């Protein structure tokens, strides 16, 4: 058998059910792997080993007391992105401003996972407050790509992706605002699912851009993503944006998955793009051919407002971030400047000392576009263009079951290679439009670059709240690929 830390959620669940392994053994294997590999990869910021082992022991006891029940996640360790609150654990958002912060409560997603007996493994690194595409904006540490440690893991959920891709955990939670689950999943050879907006509660997840943020699974297989989404999804009275929309059986939806008769849309705006890496282009085109050979019907579609999505996003996201990050003022929690002789200076200096450069840049950008005289031209207008982008998707989904596109224009780039903020933003070219429209979308591993042997994923975009269909198509692709 392979090493225990290499297991995914479904495989681990089976071995646990058959009593071939215990949760304590599995959790210990993950902790040992953490000690062996984390100094090199830097996926985790902290790991509460005692707490995880105590949770694992409790899970084993539940199973022993009631062995016949069906437990998909009982005793499975899951790494948590460092902006999701787990009671009693640090939650720093990889920011110096929150150093030493200890969560006083559980996020709803954590409550949900705990109710399924999940073991909360360590806290994984990210771009500070989820702002970035390489995890290089972390204020607390460097994360390296497990496939080439000179390269970035992507971001902002880079710690989650490196932990899954480097087998430092069984699965992880990430968050996606403009591509922060999907792009690192592509860079680190994981499955990364961004659910439809509202499918998963945001309560207890530190807000970046509230109209875009979603929590989602980052896993070693499509089935693992389905199992986790099942536990995460649903209405939450603490988050008014979670609708009364039924949660189907996502795992059952994967049974008999096939490309036969699937209508796959190829948005032309995603294929004739300047600056797309030739290997990414090749791998995406091969994925399209494989789907067609397996029986998918290819449909060319157009999303005419795609070219405006980046601009809309870099108005909407910083605007919302500037408002959300106003809470970090040195009053109730987080860093307080010692040079705070007045209340104004307490705010301005605590924030100056606590935030990193990208966060400051976005706060300034967001404050600017919301400031008097500019609101209508920027935020107001961007919200209208966003409607047009959403309509493009609604129109496309009248004709197709899913869209197939690249995830990011390049494979993982070198640490320090991208310096200019605007160039870095272009990483999210293919993931931003579906974030703005609220559709669900996933990155699924598709292949490796020829010379550098770097993983590359493809993106499947699904209709809003059509995660069951999306996951089924992703599973079919997984089968076609292997």
């Amino acid at each position: 058998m392979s090493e225990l830390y290499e297991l995914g959620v479904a495989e681990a669940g089976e071995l646990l059910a058959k009593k071939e392994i215990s949760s304590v053994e599995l959790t210990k294997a993950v902790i040992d792997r953490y000690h062996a590999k984390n100094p090199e990869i830097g996926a985790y910021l902290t790991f509460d080993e005692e707490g995880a082992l105590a949770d694992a022991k409790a899970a084993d006891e539940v199973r022993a007391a009631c062995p016949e029940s069906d437990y998909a996640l009982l005793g499975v360790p899951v790494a948590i992105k460092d902006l999701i609150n787990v009671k009693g654990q640090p939650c720093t958002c990889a920011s110096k401003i929150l150093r030493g912060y200890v969560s006083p409560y559980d996020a709803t997603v954590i409550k949900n996972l705990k109710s399924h007996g999940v073991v909360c493994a360590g806290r994984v690194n990210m771009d500070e407050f989820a702002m970035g595409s390489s995890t290089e904006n972390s204020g607390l540490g460097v994360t390296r790509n497990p496939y080439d440690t000179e390269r970035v893991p992507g971001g902002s959920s880079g710690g989650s992706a490196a932990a899954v891709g480097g087998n430092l955990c069984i699965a992880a939670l990430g968050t996606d605002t403009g591509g922060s689950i999907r792009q690192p999943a592509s860079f680190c050879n994981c499955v990364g699912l961004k659910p439809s907006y509202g499918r998963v509660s945001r309560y207890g997840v530190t807000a970046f851009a509230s109209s875009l943020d979603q929590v989602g699974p980052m896993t070693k297989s499509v089935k693992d993503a389905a199992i986790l989404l099942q536990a995460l999804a649903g209405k939450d009275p603490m988050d008014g944006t979670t609708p009364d929309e039924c949660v189907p059986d996502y795992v059952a939806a994967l049974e008999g998955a096939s490309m036969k008769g699937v209508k796959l849309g190829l948005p032309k705006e995603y294929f004739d793009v300047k600056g797309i890496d030739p290997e990414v282009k090749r791998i995406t085109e091969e994925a399209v051919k494989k789907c067609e050979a397996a029986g998918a019907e290819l449909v060319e579609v157009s999303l005419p407002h795609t070219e405006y999505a980046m601009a809309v996003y870099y108005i909407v996201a910083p605007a919302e971030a500037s408002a959300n990050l106003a809470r970090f003022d040195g009053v109730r929690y987080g860093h307080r400047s010692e040079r705070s002789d007045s209340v104004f200076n307490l705010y301005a200096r605590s924030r100056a000392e606590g935030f990193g450069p990208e966060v400051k840049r976005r706060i300034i950008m967001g404050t600017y576009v919301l400031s008097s005289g500019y609101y209508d031209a920027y935020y107001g207008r961007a919200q209208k263009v966003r409607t047009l982008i959403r309509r493009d998707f609604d129109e496309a989904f009248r004709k197709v079951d899913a869209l197939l596109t690249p995830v990011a224009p390049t494979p993982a780039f070198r640490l320090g290679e991208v310096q200019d903020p605007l160039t870095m933003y272009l990483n999210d070219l293919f993931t931003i439009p579906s974030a703005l429209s609220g559709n669900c979308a996933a990155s699924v591993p598709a292949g490796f670059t020829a010379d550098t042997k770097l993983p590359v994923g493809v993106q499947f975009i699904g209709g809003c709240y059509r995660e069951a269909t999306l996951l089924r198509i992703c599973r079919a692709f997984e089968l076609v690929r292997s």
Partner: protein
Amino acid sequence: MKIDVAYVAELARLELTDEEKALFQGQLESIVGYVDKISEVDVEGVEPTMHGRRLVNAFREDEVRPSMDRELALANAPARTETDFKLPKIVEDAES
């Protein structure tokens, strides 16, 4: 497009060094130059999208419920008294 970075930073309650102001000046002007692209789009009569999906208001009864324990809420405070968050003086002493 000229952005008054110092003024915007003040609005954002964010102290910036002169180096940061100079750096952000150029970077923000290039980002704003890029996002100005949306001015090309005809949005006449288009409703704005506030969220990923159209939503209805989520109402609930306005009832008193227990909230977070005071000690827990104060546990992360950078400065506190027995029962409250502690801040520098906000209001000047009234002349008597």
